[in-house]
C-alpha cells in the first residue's frame, strides 16, 4: 500500500551519493550541516533506517489508554498502552488521507478517531471503523472488497530499556541489546535500573541549528569545563576529576562520566591555561549544588547518548532525558523531560527541583549549548567546502580515561557516514 513507501525515491538521493566523506574521522565536512539533500536523505536512511529512537518513558504510559504523540525524525508516531498492558506504537497518520490521528502530546483515550472523516483506530493502531463504510441507504460507501485490516497504520518495532521506550521504523534493526552494547546498557541501568521514574517537568527548547551540531555538543566532553563556567567553579565537572569516556564498539553511543576528586582540584591544570573557567564566582545560596549520591556511588555526572538522537543525563541529582528531533536543516527541537523517582524523599525532590536550574533552556550549565550550535551554523555559512577538525585525543573513536578527547564525536560520524552511504575517501587530507 502506498502509505508504506517511506521516502524511497527521495529526489536528492543521487546528489547525496555523489558526496564523499573524508577517510580520516578527524575531518567533518561542513556541508553535512547545510545541505537540504543530506537532510532529506537522513530522514530515510537514519530515522527510517535501522536505528532505535527514543519515544517516551514507560512511566508516561502508566495506565491503559495513555498515549504519547511524538516523532522519529520528522515522522509522527503514536505510542500507546492498551488494556492488555502492552505498549504499542504506530505511525500517527490516518490510513485514509494522511491526517494526524492524534495531536495532543500526552493524553488518555479509549480509541483514536481521525477528525477529518472519523476513521477510527484502536489503541494497537488497528483500523476499526470507517464512517459511512456502507454508504447511506445503500448508496455510496466503500467498495465491498475494502479490507480495514489491510489499511492500518504501520506498526513500529519497540524495545524497552529500564523504562525507556525506543522504537524503530525498520524491521531489520538489530536487537536493542546488540545495538547498544553491554557498556551502554550498564550505564543506563546505573541510573534507571529498578527505579520508577516520576516526571517533574517537560520543556522544549528550539535550537537554531542542525540536529547533528547538538549531538556533537552532547558528545563533546572537551568543551564542558571551558564553555560552561558554572560547572567548573563548583567542582561539578573538571577535566582534572577522575572520569572517562566510553565509546560503544560501533562508535554511535557514548558515556562521559566524572566523579569528584577534591585533591585534584587544587592542581595546576586550570591555572596554567588562561581560560575563562578560572574566574571566581560565589553562590549566595550554595545549597543549589548540595546533592546526595544519586545511586550510592561517587559519580556526579554521567552524560549518555544513544545514536541518533537520545540523551540520558545525570548531573548531580538532576536526572533528565533529552530527545533530539530535527525540524529542518538549521532547526532542531530538544525535548527535555526532568525526572525524579517514586521513592524520593521530600528533601530529595526539593534538591532535584533546585538542580533543575542547572539544565534545560535556562540551565546554568546547559543554556550555552542552546546557542553554541547556532554560532556554528552561522559561522560555517559560506564554508560548505571546508572541514571541522576533531583531532583532540587522536583519530580513533574508542573509549578513553581522559575526557580531553573528541573520540565520541568521531564515533558519531563513523556510524553516521556509514548509515548515509557516503563514499569514503576524498577530503582535505588528499589536498593537503
Amino acid at each position, binding site marked *: 500500500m502506498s502509505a508504506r513507501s517511506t521516502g524511497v525515491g527521495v529526489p536528492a538521493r543521487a546528489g547525496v551519493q555523489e558526496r564523499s566523506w573524508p577517510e580520516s574521522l578527524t575531518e567533518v565536512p561542513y556541508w553535512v550541516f547545510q545541505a537540504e539533500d543530506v537532510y532529506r536523505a537522513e530522514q530515510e536512511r537514519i530515522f527510517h533506517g535501522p536505528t532505535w529512537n527514543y519515544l517516551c518513558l514507560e512511566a508516561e504510559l502508566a495506565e491503559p489508554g495513555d498515549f504519547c504523540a511524538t516523532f522519529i525524525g520528522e515522522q509522527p508516531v503514536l505510542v500507546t498502552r492498551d488494556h492488555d498492558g502492552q505498549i504499542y506504537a504506530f505511525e500517527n497518520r490516518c490510513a485514509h488521507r494522511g491526517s494526524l490521528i492524534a495531536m495532543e502530546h500526552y493524553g488518555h483515550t479509549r480509541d483514536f478517531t481521525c477528525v477529518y472523516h472519523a476513521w477510527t483506530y484502536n489503541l494497537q493502531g488497528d483500523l476499526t471503523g470507517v464512517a459511512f463504510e456502507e454508504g447511506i441507504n445503500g448508496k455510496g460507501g466503500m467498495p465491498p472488497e475494502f479490507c480495514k485490516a489491510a489499511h492500518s497504520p504501520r506498526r513500529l518495532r519497540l524495545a524497552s530499556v529500564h523504562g525507556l521506550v525506543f522504537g524503530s521504523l525498520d524491521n531489520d534493526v538489530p536487537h536493542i541489546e546488540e545495538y547498544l552494547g553491554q557498556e551502554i546498557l550498564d550505564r543506563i541501568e546505573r541510573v534507571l535500573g529498578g527505579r520508577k521514574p516520576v516526571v517533574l*517537568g517537560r520543556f522544549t527548547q528550539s535550537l537554531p541549528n542542525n540536529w547533528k551540531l547538538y549531538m556533537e555538543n552532547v558528545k563533546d566532553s572537551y568543551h564542558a569545563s571551558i564553555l560552561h563556567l558554572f560547572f567548573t567553579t563548583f567542582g561539578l565537572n573538571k577535566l582534572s576529576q577522575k572520569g572517562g569516556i566510553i565509546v560503544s564498539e560501533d562508535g554511535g553511543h557514548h558515556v562521559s562520566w566524572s566523579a569528584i576528586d577534591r585533591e585534584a582540584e587544587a592542581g595546576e591544570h586550570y591555572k596554567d591555561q588562561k581560560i575563562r573557567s578560572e574566574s571566581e564566582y560565589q553562590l*549566595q545560596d550554595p545549597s543549589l549544588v548540595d546533592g546526595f549520591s544519586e545511586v550510592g556511588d561517587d559519580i556526579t555526572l554521567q552524560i549518555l547518548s544513544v545514536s541518533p538522537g537520545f540523551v540520558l543525563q545525570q548531573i548531580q541529582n538532576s536526572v533528565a532525558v533529552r530527545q533530539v528531533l530535527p525540524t529542518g536543516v538549521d532547526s532542531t527541537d530538544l525535548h527535555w523531560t526532568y525526572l525524579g523517582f517514586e521513592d524520593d524523599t521530600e528533601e530529595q525532590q526539593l534538591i532535584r527541583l533546585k538542580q533543575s*536550574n542547572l539544565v534545560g533552556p535556562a540551565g546554568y550549565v546547559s543554556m550555552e549549548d542552546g546557542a553554541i550550535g547556532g554560532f556554528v551554523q552561522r559561522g560555517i555559512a559560506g564554508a560548505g567546502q571546508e572541514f571541522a577538525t576533531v583531532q583532540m585525543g587522536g583519530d580513533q573513536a574508542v573509549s578513553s580515561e581522559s575526557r580531553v578527547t573528541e573520540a565520541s564525536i568521531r564515533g558519531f560520524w563513523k556510524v553516521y557516514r556509514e548509515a548515509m552511504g557516503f563514499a569514503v575517501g576524498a577530503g582535505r587530507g588528499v589536498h593537503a
Partner: protein
Amino acid sequence: MDAHNLISRAQGRYVHTIDDGLIEDWPEFFADDAFYKVTTADNHRRGLPAGIIWAHNKAMLKDRVSALKEANIYEPHTYRHMLGQPSVLEESEAGATSETSFLVIRIMGNGPTDVFASGRYLDEYVFDDGRALIKKRIVVCDSSRIDTLLVLPL
C-alpha cells in the same frame, strides 16, 4: 493606595528594571522567602513541579543575576515586556493575589525583534511599607517552547 494600584506600580517598576534598568535590582522586587518559577501552561495544567527557572528564596534570584552577568555565555539581547492590567483576585490589608498577562518581545543585539514569550504571572504580593513585594510568582508561559535559551528573567 489600593491593591490594584500597589501591584500596578510594582509591576511597572519590575518590567522597567528588566527591560531598561539595572538587572541587579530585579531580586529587590521579591520578599526574602519568595518563590519564583518559570514554567509552561502544559506543565502548570498537569501540576508538574519543575521549572525552567526555579527559586525558593531571594538569594537564588541574586544567583541568577550573578550567573547571567558573570558566568553564562549568550548573545547580547534585551526584552520589552508588555503587561496587561493586573486582575486582583483576593486582597487584604496584608497582601493580595493577582494575575497579569504578559507579552515579552526579544530584541537580539544583531537585529531581529521577535515575540519571545506570552503568558501570565500568577502572583502573591505582600504589602510592606506602602510597597507590594512579590511573595510568589509563577510565570506561566503559554507555549511549551523556548527559543534558543532563557537567561534574562521574565
